[in-house]
């Protein structure tokens, strides 16, 4: 699904973002991307959704070489990739519905269907009841869930999460983590960039470690998160839980 071949990204100032990285991520996989600040995590994600172009090497997404994708084709690729950021990137003057429904609006759906789709997606993240609220009226965890709903609204094959729990306290981080794991269980490939080693250790799965732009480590880690979850009786954060 996602393949990188000898990918290097050097920024105009000369800084090295990524250095000769080669790897494959299978469809439906959950991958943690870790490393210190500046190790290249954000660059890695940006290269996949074509915010950046590699200086060298090739990137294949669903068999399509996106490293040389013409500018006018990039929007169509992005419609198949959901992206979530640490700072949520919600528009404060827009309601939750308007924040979530950007893509349906771009695709030309009428308002009724936009609302229906937004409601369904917000229900998946447990926020359908806040559809008319403004971001400022939501907690950090709720804002991140709105951002995740925005990323999920077109049922993307890939979800890229760039430090999605970085601005949240441990309890809310747990909530978002559970949500992303749930999304992965439904078949979406999730790449979760974080420098939170504790979180990675608890969840397990495949972990890619970047150091100074190079892929320093690529291993499967066993985790205790699922067994702990099974012990819990509380449901995952869905609308039913609210």
């Amino acid at each position, binding site marked *: 699904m996602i393949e990188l071949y000898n990918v290097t990204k050097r*920024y*105009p*100032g000369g*800084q090295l*973002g990524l250095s000769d990285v080669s790897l494959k991520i299978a469809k439906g996989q959950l991958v943690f991307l870790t490393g*210190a*600040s*500046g*190790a290249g*995590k*954000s*660059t890695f994600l*940006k290269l996949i*959704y074509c*915010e*950046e172009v590699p200086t060298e090497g090739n990137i294949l997404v669903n068999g399509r070489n996106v490293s040389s994708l013409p*500018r*006018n084709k990039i*929007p*169509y*690729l*992005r*419609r198949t990739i959901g*992206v979530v950021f640490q700072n949520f*990137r919600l*528009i404060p003057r*827009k309601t939750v519905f308007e*924040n979530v429904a*950007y*893509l349906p*609006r*771009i*695709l*030309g759906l009428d308002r009724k269907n936009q609302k229906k789709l937004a409601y369904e997606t917000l229900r998946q993240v447990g926020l359908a009841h806040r559809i008319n609220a403004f971001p400022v009226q939501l907690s950090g965890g709720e804002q991140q869930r709105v951002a995740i709903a*925005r990323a999920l609204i*077109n049922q993307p094959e890939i979800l890229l999460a760039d*430090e999605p729990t970085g601005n949240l306290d441990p309890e809310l981080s747990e909530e978002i983590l559970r949500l992303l794991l749930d999304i992965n269980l439904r078949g979406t490939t999730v790449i979760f960039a974080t420098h939170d080693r504790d979180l990675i250790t608890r969840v397990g799965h495949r972990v890619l470690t970047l150091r*100074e*732009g190079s892929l320093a480590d690529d291993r499967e880690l066993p985790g205790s998160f699922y067994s702990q979850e099974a012990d819990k009786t509380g449901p995952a954060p869905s609308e039913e839980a609210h």
Partner: protein
Amino acid sequence: MTLVQALAYFTREALLNLVRGWKVSLLAILTITVSLFLTGVFLLVSNNLGAVIDGWRAESKVVIYLEPGAESQAIADLEETLRQAPGYERVALIDVVTARQRFEQAFPSMADLLEGWGEEPLPRSLELSLTTERLQDPNLGTWLESLRQNPVVMMVDDDRDWLDQLEAVVLVLRGLALMVGGILLATAMFTISSVIRLTAYLYRDEIAVMRLVGATEFFIRGPFYLEGLLQGLVGGSLAIGSLWTIFSVAKSQSTSLLTSILASEFLTWSSSLGLVALGGLAGLVGAVASLSRETLESPKAEEPPADWNEEDS
């Protein structure tokens, strides 16, 4: 998304932008209004003056003043010569009595100037009417010069000189219209461009999100282009509306000859629509010029990520 849906979306967003930033939008619209209004004034005056000159030129005559002692046969020969001339329409002999009557009618306050002369002070003349084409013929001057050599001719007078001078004034006015209009329109384009750039800057967070979720450049830029176009069209319409109002008032209220000449006819429909379209075009060009790739680009697109830290790496 179909083109109709896209246009509906662009219109809604453009109108919202105009309403949200109504103060700066109003500034842009007024700049366009002033520039097109002044251009319209120059066009209106020059068109009306040009029409008056054309009318005068069509009615202009060549007047051949005859020597007081000229014999009837010589005058008849001259008349025959005139009838054979290219572009001839008609010729009339104005005798001294008719000449005096005309003078007294045209200048009643100066009628007494003609009193006390031993003989009639005004000479006989032949009034020659020529076709418009002939009047505009550059060879006419040479032919008139040859007439002046005729022994029965005292003087030949035609209106071409002062009509040519008036036409030069019209040309200058039209040149001024182009120059002033051009400068003001460039200013208006710059204003619209700045307003659109400011709007795009204010909404760049939203633009970044739209780009992130897969909006095309057409979808992102469309509302801004339409906003510029609307500002130009509204400004152009206001300019024509103001010009028409002032024209109507001037025409109905003023009795002066100058006003009746300069404000006899309003701009044609095509000229009026052309000015409005020019406003729209200026707005669109201003919007296109303001929205370079860099203006809409997220601020750190070509820089290292926000968490970049040399020490950490």
